[in-house]
């Protein structure tokens, strides 16, 4: 049974009707082709209507959809000869972040991905896609290996955030993330990051410093979960949709803020309704990005990555000479 979100219901109902119609026409040998065609058109129309007016929180729900393709689903479809590598060489192998050498279009890359589980057993193993310090340290080890091998890094991000636990604090998860941020700026190979589902704050950024940061249409990337934000600022869980809207966490908002460089379109109805089509779209964009970046020299790649992140931020710079007019100061978008 697929998980059906509230706003998906009308679509599933129509699809159910079509199935019934087809079944009826088959068993009773009645030609219902015309009705089926009409219904199909209605489905398309409904999908377009529903998906053209999604609220930010509905997108968050899509990004978290249990049937949504996870990084490993994309890896299986888009890469060949994937050789998974394990462990941080210090403590353990964190299943919340996977990675290894693979071929994309026959050319070698290092692919890193956060990984959620499809069932409870898997989720216990990968703690719902929330990485511990070991995950970030494994990812960095693999990225440095890519740097040595001179192959591009592809980072597929889908995590609610870093795992908040006693062990993670003791083994200094903050350091693991911070060191990744710093070291990713030193990589001399192309780095393409793609948020495929949830971009959960520092936990996502810990494998998210790229020459290009792309996002899938219905993915989100946020400094805090809308639930967390609603609890802190509104002190009311009912404010979650409002928090989701305020945080500007959707793909189109993030493109405007220049936090991401591009949006990867998803099939109508969301990536979970047609994984093959979603993977194809992701593959095309990835190809473009790798091709473009492969033309740059190692030094240029580092410089471009620095400049890309250096430019993010919105503030104004008041003139010192008694200029108190904060509000008239023009917002400087650097």
């Amino acid at each position: 049974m697929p998980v059906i979100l509230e706003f998906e219901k009308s679509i599933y109902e129509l699809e159910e009707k079509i199935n019934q119609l087809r079944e009826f026409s088959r068993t009773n040998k009645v030609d219902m082709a015309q009705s089926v065609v009409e219904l199909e058109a209605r489905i398309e129309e409904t999908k377009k209507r529903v998906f053209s007016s999604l609220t930010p929180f509905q997108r968050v729900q899509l990004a978290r959809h249990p049937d949504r393709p996870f990084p490993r689903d994309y890896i299986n479809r888009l890469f060949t000869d994937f050789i998974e590598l394990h462990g941080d060489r210090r403590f353990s192998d964190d299943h919340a972040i996977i990675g290894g050498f693979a071929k994309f279009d026959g050319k070698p890359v290092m692919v890193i991905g956060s990984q959620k589980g499809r069932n409870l057993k898997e989720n216990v193993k990968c703690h719902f896609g929330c990485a511990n310090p070991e995950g970030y340290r494994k990812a960095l080890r693999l990225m440095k290996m890519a740097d040595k091998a001179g192959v591009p890094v592809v980072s597929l991000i889908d995590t609610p955030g870093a795992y908040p636990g006693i062990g993670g604090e003791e083994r200094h998860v903050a350091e693991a993330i911070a060191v990744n941020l710093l070291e990713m700026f030193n990589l001399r190979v192309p780095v393409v990051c793609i948020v495929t589902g949830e971009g959960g704050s520092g936990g996502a950024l810990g494998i998210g410093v790229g020459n290009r940061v792309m996002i899938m249409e219905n993915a989100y990337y946020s400094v805090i979960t809308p639930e967390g934000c609603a609890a802190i600022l509104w002190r009311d869980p009912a404010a979650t949709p409002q928090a989701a809207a305020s945080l500007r966490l959707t793909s189109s908002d993030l493109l405007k803020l220049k936090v991401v460089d591009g949006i990867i379109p998803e099939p109508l109805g969301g990536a979970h309704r047609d994984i093959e089509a979603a993977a194809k779209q992701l593959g095309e964009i990835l190809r473009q990005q790798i091709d473009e970046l492969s033309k740059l020299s190692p030094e240029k790649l580092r410089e471009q990555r620095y400049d890309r992140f250096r430019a993010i931020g919105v503030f104004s710079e008041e003139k010192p000479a008694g200029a108190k007019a904060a509000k008239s100061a023009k917002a400087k978008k650097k």
Partner: protein
Amino acid sequence: MTLFKKHETTIAPPSTKKEIPAGLWLKCKGCDAVLYRTKLEENLQVCPQCGHHYPMTAGERIALLTDADSFKEIDADLVSVDALKFADGKTYPEKLASSRKKSGLKDAAVTGTATLDNKAYALGVMDFRFLGASMGSVVGEKITRLTELATAKKLPLVIVTASGGARMYEGMLSLMQMAKTSAALARHNEKGLPYIVIMTHPTTAGVMASFATLGDVHLAEPGALIGFAGPRVIKQTTQAILPPGFQTSEFCLEKGIVDRIIPRSDLRRELSLFLDYFAGAVK
């Protein structure tokens, strides 16, 4: 959902405790002793009875760590902008305005160059009074510019951290400051220049997972809260019982997260010593 349920409010019985006039006196959070505020200020905001460290303002901190009149502020005119048009009843600009009024600062970080015992260095100080010293675009930009300046002028970098984390009102713009500041530190480090972090109460979340934890030397003030995830979040998510003293400076020392815990009275002397020891790196 019951997790976030509001508790019913009950009317508290009138307090039998003697009221302490606000302003002049305060009751120590550490030992309940009644402290004369002036005495506390003279003692670097440290309780003379129990040694509890109270937050310092950016100005007090700069005075503590620099030669008199040597601090030259940079980028004093950067101010935050409500880029997201964030709304939660009280708007972001109003909150900025009240923080400015309360602290006399334009944002949560003050940066500049200074000398300590005639040794030049770059200093950044965060002030918790300004929106919990959360990191938005301005804090990120100031720390980045300071680091770039230190790199260009071959100066040791010292940052006194305190932060509740990222500034939610700036959404992803604030998260990206983690990457921006780390990028600048990568270049500072590449030049072989020293970076000293002084962690004060509280240093957490996005600041902890970026520039606060990328130093060569990590010093902490006693009793500070230092960690990534909030204790409440950890408790809720894992249902674990947190060990006593979890995420304090003392816990961090035991776990190898900080080099030393330094009482405030020794901080100036120790920082000066570190600048001596690193003198070879900045020649």
